[in-house]
């Protein structure tokens, strides 16, 4: 077997700053699937792009990156073009950002064919249509004339894969190709990639932050941390008996469904439910005049001290539900009561909103967007104390200090602006801000989805901790069943605005009654060695 991609002692840095990649060495053989696992900022994207000769401007390089013997760090531009055109293709993370939104899908697919494959327009269209069908798309003729915004994310990713395959590459580079997709869509894409990789005997380098994904697709794994390879070996070995501390930590932080660790609901003692929802519905009018039912006839209750997970894919109505609970949206029908107080069916007035905010707080998905970039984090939290607890300036600052300390933000960070903090720290601040109102119900809307696995694990731990200490009631909205299994005693599964299943988490996960829940469970990536029992 010859080495298709061979990266040797590759170092990349910007003048005056530390190395982003430090003596990275890895190789991919012909027809082999290799995973490169790492968290954000580990340099995995830089490594893959290097294989195509895509280096950031003004960066300094040393070492070598060879694709079939061609060193991309020193190759002339013409050779690089040939490499990109004929031998290596890349599939990017977000197909919606990766395909030019103002050009048609057909244009995207055929632009390479008509330019240097010497095909006529008709021939390339034909070729593209065949390729689209091969990646499992239907109505391909119409699709060629459509624009990216008219297709779903999963379909677009298939288009992106089709475009990569059109060049019949020997090396396929995948940069987190399923991160922007739903679990069930992800399962389909992974299957397609595996299928094509084996059918065409392509070498594949698959980047991901998710060990489960790596294990489900690749034979060998490299673990990258802060620009250095900390461990490599057979996927099975790395996963089951990690050697490096970091890998061990990563494996430990990777969420898994462990039924015996699912929390149990507090015994029903006949008290009034904290949150009670009856026949709740919300509709939106689409630009075409059509009505979209975001949520239909949702009915459930949540007892004080309970924890409810709301699981569904994008468009299932889970965020709409969360937003209605905190009164960011108004229900079109049904009844929503918190602490026995029934919500008026209209947008709340400022005074009512303030009153509600004392009981219910929300933490959003992206802490980069949900914190004001101009306000120091300490002041942000102190402001909540002043608003909701009526504390004076000095008292509020003191309370904020204590609370931030408790969520793991030291006093030295008190004056920092959000941009000086990491993603995990920002989410801690966002949680502290929510807790400062001393709410009874904390709504977490995909609060850990934007975070790295290790950070996600820490934030989940924090949520568990404050729930126990403060007796909080938790409503956790997520797409990840494993996260729910760890945090929530009760579970509610949403599909296209309908509740398809609800009940104790352990029961639903061990014996799902609805097809959809079963599909969700089956779609979770499974390690290769588990699929083929010896």
């Amino acid at each position, binding site marked *: 077997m010859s080495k298709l991609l061979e990266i040797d002692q590759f170092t990349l840095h910007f003048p005056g700053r530390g190395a982003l990649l430090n003596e990275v060495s890895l190789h991919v053989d012909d027809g082999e699937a290799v995973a490169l696992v790492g968290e954000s900022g580990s340099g995995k994207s830089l490594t893959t792009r290097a294989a195509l000769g895509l280096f950031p401007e003004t960066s300094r390089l040393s070492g070598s990156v060879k694709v079939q013997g061609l060193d991309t760090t020193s190759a002339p531009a013409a050779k690089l073009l040939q490499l*990109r055109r004929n031998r290596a293709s890349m599939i990017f993370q977000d197909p919606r950002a990766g395909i030019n939104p103002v*050009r048609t899908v057909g244009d995207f697919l055929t632009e390479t064919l008509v330019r240097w494959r010497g095909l006529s327009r008709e021939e390339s269209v034909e070729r593209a249509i065949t390729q689209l069908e091969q990646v499992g798309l239907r109505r391909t003729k119409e699709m060629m004339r459509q624009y990216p915004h008219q297709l779903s994310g999963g379909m677009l990713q298939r288009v992106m894969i089709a475009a990569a395959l059109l060049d019949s590459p020997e090396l396929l580079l995948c940069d987190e190709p399923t991160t922007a997709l739903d679990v069930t869509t992800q399962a389909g894409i992974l299957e397609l990639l595996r299928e094509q990789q084996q059918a065409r005997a392509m070498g594949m380098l698959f980047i991901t932050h998710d060990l489960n994904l790596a294990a489900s697709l690749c034979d060998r794994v490299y673990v990258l941390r802060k620009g250095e390879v900390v461990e490599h070996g057979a996927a099975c070995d790395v996963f089951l008996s990690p050697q490096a501390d970091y890998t061990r930590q990563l494996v430990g932080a990777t969420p898994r469904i462990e039924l015996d660790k699912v929390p149990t609901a507090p015994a029903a003692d006949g008290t009034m439910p904290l949150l009670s929802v009856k026949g709740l519905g919300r509709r939106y009018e689409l*630009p075409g005049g059509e009505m979209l039912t975001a949520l239909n006839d949702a009915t459930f209750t949540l007892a004080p001290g309970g924890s409810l997970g709301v699981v569904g894919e994008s468009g299932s109505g889970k965020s709409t539900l969360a937003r209605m609970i905190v009164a960011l949206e108004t229900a079109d029908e049904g009844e929503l009561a918190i602490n026995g107080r029934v919500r008026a069916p209209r947008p709340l007035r400022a005074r009512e909103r303030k009153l509600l905010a004392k009981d219910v707080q929300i933490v959003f998905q992206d802490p980069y967007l949900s914190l004001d970039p101009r306000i120091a984090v300490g002041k942000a939290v102190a402001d909540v104390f002043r608003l909701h607890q009526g504390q004076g300036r000095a008292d509020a600052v003191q309370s904020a200090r204590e609370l931030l300390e408790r969520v793991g933000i030291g006093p030295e960070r008190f004056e920092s602006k959000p941009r000086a903090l990491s993603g995990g720290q920002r989410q801690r601040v966002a949680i502290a801000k929510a807790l400062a109102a001393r709410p009874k119900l904390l709504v977490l809307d995909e609060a850990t989805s934007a975070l790295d696995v290790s950070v996600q694990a820490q934030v989940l731990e924090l949520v568990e901790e404050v729930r126990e200490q403060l007796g909080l009631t938790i409503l956790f909205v997520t797409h990840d069943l494993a996260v729910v299994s760890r945090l929530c005693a009760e579970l509610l599964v949403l599909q296209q605005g309908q509740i398809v299943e609800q009940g104790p988490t352990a029961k639903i996960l061990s014996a799902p009654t609805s097809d959809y829940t079963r599909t969700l469970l089956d779609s979770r990536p499974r390690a290769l060695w588990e699929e083929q029992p010896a």
Partner: protein
Amino acid sequence: MAVTQLAAPPAPPTPATKKSPTAAPLALVLRRVGTLLITLFFASLIVFFSRFVLPGDPARFLLRGRSPKPEALAEITKQFGLDKPPIEQYFTWIGGILHGDWGRSLTYRQSVSDVLLNRLPVTLELVALAAVFITGLGLIAGMLASLNKGGWDRFILITVTAAGAIPPFVAAIVLTALFAVQLGWFPSFGSGDEGPSRLWHLTLPALALGVTFIAFMARVTRSSMNEQLTREHVEVATSRGLTRSSVVFRHVLRNALGPILTVSGVLIAGLLVSSAIVEQTFGLTGIGQLLVQSIDRLDFAVVQAIVMIIVTAFVLANTVVDLIQPLIDPRIAAGTESR
């Protein structure tokens, strides 16, 4: 096996997404044209009635230098319909415009249409030539700055910032001094005859008129392209082996056109207004010069007509821009808007 079934993607476009592209264009055009008409109506109200706010009696002005005999004054007032109530005057005026009659000029003693028709070609040619310079030079400067980081970018940015601060009349004087007086390449005065001579005569005025806008256009092009250059689809295009020029023209410039076009729409009005100064400086007999003279002589019929033309040109240009936008970015037509 459940996975394989899921692998079949959901049925493509739901009726909702399929419906909009066919129904949208006509509705969009009608809505824009409706907005256009309403805007013009309100503009006409403001243009017409603003004269009653201004001091000065046009009839009295006509008789300047002579002893204003009350009878003569009354007769002229009556002849130009100035004795009727303002509302009635407005309807006479607007009704006339709809029939192509813009009223009579007080100073020239002929119909406003005739006066304007003599002048309009020069101004239109001037503005058109300036527009060519603006798009040509502005786009090229912006693209060069955006694609050549470092020295070139800084040089163009500084030049453009300096040029943007030059008022048209200063630019006119500098250009005349340099190219007409010193080098003698271009004439410094007059609009010449039809054809090449006209073009030759209008080059300096068009440059003087355009210099601020060239700077503006260069800046917008530069920032709009810079924004697109960082987009992932540009990286994807590069990774597929497209040449630099293919990437720039197909994926950067094409996507950057939206903001550039929006700015162009706004520029039109600025060009027409600035043309007054430039025409005055270069002695061109266009409507800009006419506007200045007519205000001076309280020739309201002419002033109103010119202002209406400028307003119409402005609104029309922006409507056209709005209508072209969906062709450049199909997401706007679908109502999902760019982001």
